C-alpha cells in the first residue's frame, strides 16, 4: 500500500531516485539542492558522498554507471559550470547504468551569486535530454522515468528543478523501494569509454570523437520520439487565439493565474528537452500568439520560433527575450501582469490589494558570536593601515564585503580568490594582496589556485577560514571535517600540512583575539612569497547547536557614562546584538552570546 507524506521537493526527488534503485549518489552542497544528498543516506544499499566538488561528483556518478549501477550527481547551477568539462565528454560516451545529473537552478538568485539556466549548458551545449518539473510530485515521477530512459537511450538524463520545486513542500505519494539491487559489473567498451582522437578502422579511419559526436546527434531523433509520447508534455484546450506555453514551474504559475482570473486559455505544458515537436506544431497552428513562461532564459521560446519558421506557421512567440521580464523569478502575478498587456480582458481581473511598499532590507551578516566577525574586523583595520587589497570567495565570510565590514573587493565563484590575487600581485601594484577563502571552498577548487600561487611565487597572503564545515549551505562536512556524510569518522586533511608541503609559510591565528590577528596579518604581508594564514575556529552556530563552547564566555556591559555614542562598535564592527537607542549603545541580552569582542573594538573602554 502506498503511503503519503508531506515532503520538501528535494526529499521527494531523493525518494524518486531511491525507488528507481540509484546506488551511487554524489554531490557538492549548494542551495537549493543540498538536501538531496543529505536525505539519501537513509536509503539502504546506497553509496552516498559529499564530493570535493561537482566535477568530481559527476565523475563518481559515471564510475558507478559504468559498473551498471544507477547513479545520481547532485549540484546547483554554478556546480554544473564546474562539471561542464566532464559533461562534454560523458555526452559522447553515454552511460551504462541509468545516470541522472541533477542541477538545481535558482531563478531570482535567492541564495546564489548569479542567475543562470542549466538547460543551456546541458541541452543547448551538451545535447543531453532534460526534464523540467512543474511540481515536486512530477519531479519525483520524472527522476524515476529518467533512470529507465537513461538505460534505454544510454544517455545521461538531466533533472533541472528550480528553487520553487526543491524548496516547495507538498503531499507526496511514496511507492515501494526495490527489493533487490543490481550486482556491479564492468563491461569493457574502449571505443566508447576511452575518449581519444584515435582513428577507428571500422569507420574507415574516422576519428573516435567524430564518431561519438555523430552518435550523440543521431540520439536526438530517438529522444524526440520519446518526448513526443512523454507524459510530461500535453495540450489543454481553451478559448481565444492567445496560447500559453508553460515550461516546468511556468505551467504551475499559468494554472494559478488562470484560476485567479477565472478564464480558460489554450495551454501547452512542456516538461522535456528535446521538445515534443509534433505537439508543438499542433499547438502553434491553433493560435495566433503564444506567451512562453520559462525559468530563466528564453530557451524554449527560441526553439518555438525555429519550429514556426521551419514549418511555415504564422505565430508570434513572446518570450523572455522580447516581451516578458528577462530577469528574476516568475510567479502567478508575473503571468497575470503580462497577460493583462496581451489579452485586454485580463486587466480587470487583477486582485491586487496593495502595492508593495519599500521596507528596509535585511542584509546578511555574520551570526552573533561568529569567529569571522573578529577576523574580518582585524583584517579591516589591517588594510586600513597597510592599504591592503582583499579578494574574497564563496562562503559565510562573503558577508564581510557588505556594510558595515566592506573588506573584500571582489567575490566571483568558488576558488577564484587566490588566482585573482595572483593576477593582482603580478601587476606589480604596490599594495599587499590578501586572498580570503573558506575551508570547504579551498578543498573544492581553491587548492589548485594555492598551488599556482606558490609555484609562481606570487606575493599573496592567503587567509583560510577553517571553520570545519560548509556552514553557508547548512553544515555539510568536507575533507577537513573529520566526518563523512553519514557522520562517521573520516580521514582529516590537514590544511596547514598541505600548505607547508606545497611550500607556503604557515601562520595561525585565533580569530577571537582581534589584536593578535591583526598583527599576524600585518606581519605576513611583509614576508615575500605566498603565505598562508589559518584562522582555525569552528563555526559558532553549529557548535552552539551541538552544545560545544568555542570561546571563553565574557559577559560585557555598556557603561553609559563612558559611551559617547560614537557607534564604532555598530558602524565598524556591526554585531547585530548591539542596538543604538537614545544616543547610547545597548546590548540586546536576548541576542548576545557573550563573545565579548565588542569590548575589544570599543576604543573608549565603554564596553567592559
Amino acid at each position, binding site marked *: 500500500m502506498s503511503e*503519503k507524506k*508531506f515532503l520538501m521537493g528535494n526529499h521527494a526527488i531523493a525518494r524518486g531516485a531511491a525507488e528507481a534503485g540509484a546506488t551511487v549518489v554524489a554531490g557538492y552542497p549548494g542551495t537549493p539542492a543540498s538536501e538531496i544528498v543529505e536525505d539519501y543516506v537513509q536509503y539502504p544499499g546506497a553509496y552516498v558522498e559529499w564530493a570535493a566538488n561537482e566535477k568530481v561528483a559527476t565523475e563518481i556518478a559515471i564510475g558507478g554507471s559504468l559498473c551498471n549501477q544507477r547513479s545520481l550527481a547532485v549540484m546547483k547551477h554554478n556546480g554544473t559550470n564546474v562539471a561542464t568539462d566532464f559533461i562534454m565528454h560523458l555526452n559522447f560516451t553515454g552511460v551504462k547504468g541509468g545516470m541522472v545529473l541533477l542541477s538545481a537552478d535558482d531563478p531570482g538568485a*535567492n*541564495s546564489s551569486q548569479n542567475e543562470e539556466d542549466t538547460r543551456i549548458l546541458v541541452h543547448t551545449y551538451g545535447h543531453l535530454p532534460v526534464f523540467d518539473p512543474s511540481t515536486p510530485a512530477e519531479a519525483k515521477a520524472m527522476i524515476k522515468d529518467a533512470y529507465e530512459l537513461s538505460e534505454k537511450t544510454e544517455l545521461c538524463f538531466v533533472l533541472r528543478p528550480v528553487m*520553487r520545486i526543491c*524548496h*516547495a*513542500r*507538498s*503531499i507526496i505519494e511514496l511507492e515501494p523501494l526495490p527489493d533487490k539491487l543490481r550486482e556491479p559489473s564492468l563491461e569493457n567498451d574502449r571505443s566508447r569509454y576511452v575518449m581519444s582522437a584515435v582513428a577507428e578502422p571500422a569507420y574507415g579511419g574516422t576519428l573516435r570523437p567524430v564518431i561519438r559526436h555523430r552518435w550523440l546527434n543521431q540520439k536526438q531523433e530517438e529522444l524526440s520520439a520519446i518526448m513526443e509520447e512523454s507524459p510530461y508534455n500535453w495540450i489543454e484546450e481553451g478559448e481565444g487565439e492567445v496560447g500559453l506555453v508553460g515550461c516546468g514551474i511556468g505551467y*504551475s*504559475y499559468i*494554472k*494559478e*493565474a488562470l*484560476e*485567479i482570473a477565472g478564464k480558460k486559455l489554450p495551454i501547452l505544458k512542456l516538461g522535456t528537452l528535446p521538445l515534443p515537436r509534433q505537439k508543438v506544431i499542433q499547438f502553434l497552428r491553433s493560435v495566433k500568439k503564444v506567451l512562453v513562461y520559462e525559468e530563466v532564459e528564453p530557451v524554449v521560446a527560441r526553439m518555438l520560433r525555429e519550429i514556426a519558421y521551419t514549418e511555415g506557421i504564422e505565430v508570434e512567440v513572446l518570450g523572455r527575450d522580447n516581451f516578458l521580464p528577462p530577469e528574476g523569478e516568475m*510567479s*502567478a*502575478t508575473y503571468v*497575470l501582469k503580462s497577460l493583462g498587456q496581451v489579452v485586454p480582458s485580463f486587466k480587470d481581473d*487583477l*486582485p*491586487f*490589494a*496593495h*502595492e*508593495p*511598499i519599500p*521596507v*528596509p*532590507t*535585511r*542584509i*546578511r*551578516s*555574520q*551570526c552573533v558570536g561568529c569567529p569571522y566577525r573578529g577576523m574580518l574586523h582585524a583584517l579591516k583595520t589591517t588594510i586600513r593601515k597597510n592599504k591592503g587589497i582583499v579578494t574574497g570567495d564563496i562562503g*559565510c565570510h562573503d*558577508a564581510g564585503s557588505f*556594510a*558595515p565590514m566592506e573588506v573584500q573587493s571582489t567575490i566571483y565563484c568558488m576558488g577564484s580568490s587566490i588566482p585573482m590575487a595572483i593576477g593582482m600581485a603580478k601587476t606589480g601594484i604596490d599594495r599587499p594582496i590578501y586572498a580570503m577563502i573558506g575551508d570547504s571552498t579551498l578543498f573544492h577548487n581553491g587548492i589548485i589556485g594555492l598551488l599556482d600561487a606558490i609555484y609562481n611565487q606570487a606575493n599573496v597572503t592567503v587567509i583560510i577560514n577553517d571553520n570545519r564545515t560548509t556552514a*553557508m549551505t547548512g553544515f555539510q562536512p568536507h575533507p577537513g571535517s573529520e566526518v563523512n556524510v553519514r557522520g562517521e569518522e573520516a580521514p582529516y586533511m590537514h590544511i596547514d600540512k598541505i600548505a607547508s608541503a606545497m611550500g607556503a609559510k604557515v601562520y595561525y591565528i585565533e580569530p577571537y583575539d582581534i589584536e593578535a590577528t591583526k598583527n599576524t596579518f600585518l606581519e605576513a604581508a611583509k614576508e615575500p612569497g605566498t603565505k598562508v594564514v589559518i584562522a582555525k575556529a569552528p563555526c559558532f*552556530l553549529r557548535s552552539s547547536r551541538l552544545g560545544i563552547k568555542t570561546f571563553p564566555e565574557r559577559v560585557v556591559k555598556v557603561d553609559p557614562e563612558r559611551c559617547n555614542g560614537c*557607534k564604532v562598535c*555598530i*558602524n565598524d564592527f*556591526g554585531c*547585530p546584538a*548591539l*542596538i*543604538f537607542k537614545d544616543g547610547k549603545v545597548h546590548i540586546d541580552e*536576548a541576542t548576545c552570546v557573550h563573545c565579548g569582542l565588542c569590548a575589544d573594538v570599543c576604543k573608549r573602554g565603554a564596553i567592559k
Partner: protein
Amino acid sequence: MKLNLVIAGVGGQGNIFASEVIAQYAMKKGYNVFGTETIGAAQRGGSVVSHVRIADGPIYSPLVPQGQADYLVGFEPMEALRYINLTKPGATFLINRSQVPTISINMGLDRYPEEGEIIKTLSEAASCGYAIDATKAAAQMGNTIYTNVILLGALSKICPQLEPEGILEAILGRLKPKTHEANRRAFALGQELVSAPEAKVL
C-alpha cells in the same frame, strides 16, 4: 475550503516550524497542502517568509500570489509590512510586536517604521488585525523559543479554519514529551493574549 497563509519573520523565530505544523494539521484533516519558504540566509540576519496553502481541491503554485493571502502573520512587524502586497482584500493580519532592527537601521542608514505606521499601513490592506508581544511573553516564560508556539496559539484563536486542539496536537507531535507542558502553556498564553481587547488593532 481554501486558505492562504503567509508567515513573515526573521531567522531563528521558528517560522518554518510553524508553517510545517499548520501543514501537518491540514494534511491530517484530509486537505491538500502546498507551500514553500524563502530563506534569505536565515541564521545570518535574513528574512524568512513561509507560504502555506490549504485547499480541498488542486493547488498549483507553491507561492501565495499577490492579493491572495487570507492571513498575514508577522513574526516580526516590519517583515509583515514587506509582504503587504500578498494580502487579499478582507484579509486578517496578526503581528508580533517585538521589533528586530536591521544592521542598517542600527547604523542610522535606514529607519524602523513606527508601530503605529505599520499598523496603519497594514490596516489599509486588511479588514481585521491583531497585535501581541509574543517575544516578550515568551521571554517572561523563560525562553524566547516559545515565540512561535505563542503565535500559533493566537492564530488558531482568530482563524476558524485552524482548530486549536488540532494545531496543538500537531505542535506536540513534533516536540519531545518533556517540553509538552511548557508548550501547552505557551499555546494557551497566545490564545489569551490575542483575546485581550488591546490586541485587536483593526
